[in-house]
């Protein structure tokens, strides 16, 4: 306790200098947290965009369908999968899908197209498909009065084929049994915009797509959302244990290139922030060194009366950590409301960004223990490291020389 008191009072000796040093550390911490919050918030936003647009947090496939999609790589025992998904506490929504490439005709125009067979009732529990319908109405599985099944098509396909609501679209593809699949559908909705990933997509009710592609009741994919999106990798591992016959992948595997890019960007930001903190701590090192030099005689006295070199290193360590701790605590109190505001309200962007039909017009931060405590840990660790050279200097002081100094 007395050692802590001594360390704390030593900090207060040169109040102005300690205050300036503390301010620089407080500023460094706040900058670090704010930058982390925005970075994590931005990436979290981007991840939300594509996971809620199509990917989901976890996907389930047969074998390597995610890497090498083939129409015959289907999930047959749907009941088993759906039983697991329905009963798992960490799964908030799931939807089955079938896929196939196709050739689309509209009048005298043709275009390649991607068929998405979705469950109209379940798909909105995983994606923002409802919000993406920019024209017409959302899909349902019932045929229209003329017996034609309905389809939603991407904005790109609608433009290429000059199709609008109520028009016919003809699809030709190959069925899973090797047959030629072809049928006429009625466009009832247009989704996304010309840059959406599904701009050339044709959404069909899953039962219709299964019949069109001759897959029976099989599906190619289950996409699902996790209760805690940050814990999706653990959920994937858990589900993989429950569904050993299938391949369960978190979005980080499905979108591996994006994930690597995101991680690189985060590392780059961490490096930049680390550099800023390092520069801040050069100032701190200067302060602590000055403090040790000014107290050379005092350290000589402490050694004379029996302080071990290690005890002097510990004293300097305590002083530096205390100063850093106080600075970080103050920084935490100051930056907390800013991060809360950015997380809850966010900064309105001058120009809204349309991500595949979903409009993002607010830059938001993220509030998590990681955002606050990673910079805190880094600052305190750096403070601890920075205290070593001045501590060693104090420890090496020769009492005879120190007592002769003024």
């Amino acid at each position, binding site marked *: *306790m*007395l*050692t802590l*008191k*001594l360390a704390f*009072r*030593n900090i*207060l*000796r040169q109040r102005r200098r300690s205050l300036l040093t503390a301010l620089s550390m407080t500023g460094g911490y706040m900058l670090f947290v704010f930058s982390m919050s925005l970075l994590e918030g931005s990436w979290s936003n981007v991840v939300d965009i594509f996971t809620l647009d199509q990917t989901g947090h976890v996907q389930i496939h047969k074998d390597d369908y995610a890497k090498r999609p083939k129409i015959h790589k289907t999930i047959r025992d749907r009941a088993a999968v759906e039983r697991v998904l329905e009963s798992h506490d960490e799964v908030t929504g799931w939807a089955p899908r079938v896929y196939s490439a196709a050739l689309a005709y509209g009048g005298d125009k043709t275009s390649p197209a991607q068929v998405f067979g979705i469950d109209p009732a379940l798909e909105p529990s995983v994606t923002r498909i409802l919000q993406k319908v920019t024209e017409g109405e959302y899909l349902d599985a019932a045929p229209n009065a003329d017996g034609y099944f309905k389809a939603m098509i991407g904005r790109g396909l609608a433009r290429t084929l000059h199709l609008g609501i109520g028009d016919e679209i003809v699809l030709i593809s190959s069925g899973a049994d090797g047959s030629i699949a072809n049928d006429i559908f009625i466009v009832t909705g247009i989704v996304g915009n010309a840059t959406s990933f599904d701009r050339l997509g044709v959404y069909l009710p899953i039962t219709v797509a299964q019949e069109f592609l001759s897959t029976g009741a099989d599906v190619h994919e289950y996409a699902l959302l996790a209760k805690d999106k940050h814990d999706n990798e653990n959920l994937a591992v858990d589900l993989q244990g429950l569904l050993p016959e299938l391949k369960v992948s978190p979005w980080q595997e499905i979108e591996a290139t994006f994930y690597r890019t995101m991680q690189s960007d985060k590392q780059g930001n961490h490096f930049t922030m680390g550099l800023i903190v390092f520069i801040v701590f050069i100032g701190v090192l200067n302060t602590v060194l000055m403090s040790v030099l000014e107290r050379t*005689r*005092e350290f000589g*006295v*402490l*050694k*004379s*009366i*029996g*302080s*071990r*070199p*290690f*005890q002097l290193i510990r004293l300097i360590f305590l002083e530096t950590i205390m100063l850093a701790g106080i600075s970080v605590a103050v920084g935490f109190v100051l930056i907390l409301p800013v991060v809360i505001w950015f997380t809850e309200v966010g900064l309105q962007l001058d120009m809204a960004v349309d991500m595949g039909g979903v409009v993002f017009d607010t830059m938001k931060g993220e509030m998590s223990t990681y955002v606050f405590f990673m910079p805190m840990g880094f600052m305190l660790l750096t403070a601890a490291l920075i205290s070593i050279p001045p501590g060693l200097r104090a420890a090496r002081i*020769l*009492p*005879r020389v120190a*007592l002769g100094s003024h």
Partner: protein
Amino acid sequence: MTTVIETRDLVRRFGEGETMVTALDHVSVTIEEGEFTAIIGPSGSGKTTLLQLIGGLDEPSEGDVFLSGTNIAHMSGTELSDFRRDHIGFIFQSYNLIPVLSAEENIEYIMLLQGISEKNRKDRVKEMLALVGLEGLGDRRPAQLSGGQQQRVAVARAMASKPDIILADEPTANLDSATGIALLDVMRELNKQMNMTFVFSTHDQKIMDRADRLIHLEDGRIHLDERRTP
């Protein structure tokens, strides 16, 4: 009588080559328990150097220093720190109290280093403050005390660890005559009451008058070793 300090052929040189100075030149001296000894001599005679070597604050170029039978001349830094903490009390010319600690805390700190329990430390601090006549001033910082009071705190600090010897380097040099006399009386009383061994390095006639042994140093050698009745 028990020998608490013994130096054998102690040599301390500073510098190298042509600039080398021999501060102490084969000094052998023995000091017994309970002696009130003053090392005297002109400036540059080697008084402080001898005191520092006895106190383990410096390492001899040659020779040995035995304190309570232990040769400290070639101890490592940590060994010396521990030895100083447990066996030697220091009183410096300019008090050298820790300015951010109160008088009580200054006295307590050395016992903290010794690993003494808080209760025992507090009890001993009270006892020490009473011995040096500073009851009621324990919570004051050094800057709030007079020079004489600060030096009394330094005496209390030196005594607190129950050392074998107390080494005092010009302890009265910064004090006015009356304060110096009062401080010396305190130390002489402690010497008599507790049979504590005091070794001074001094120019001060008041100390010389009270010492029961005067070791005269000149050019790094013992010129005269005089036992007397104060």
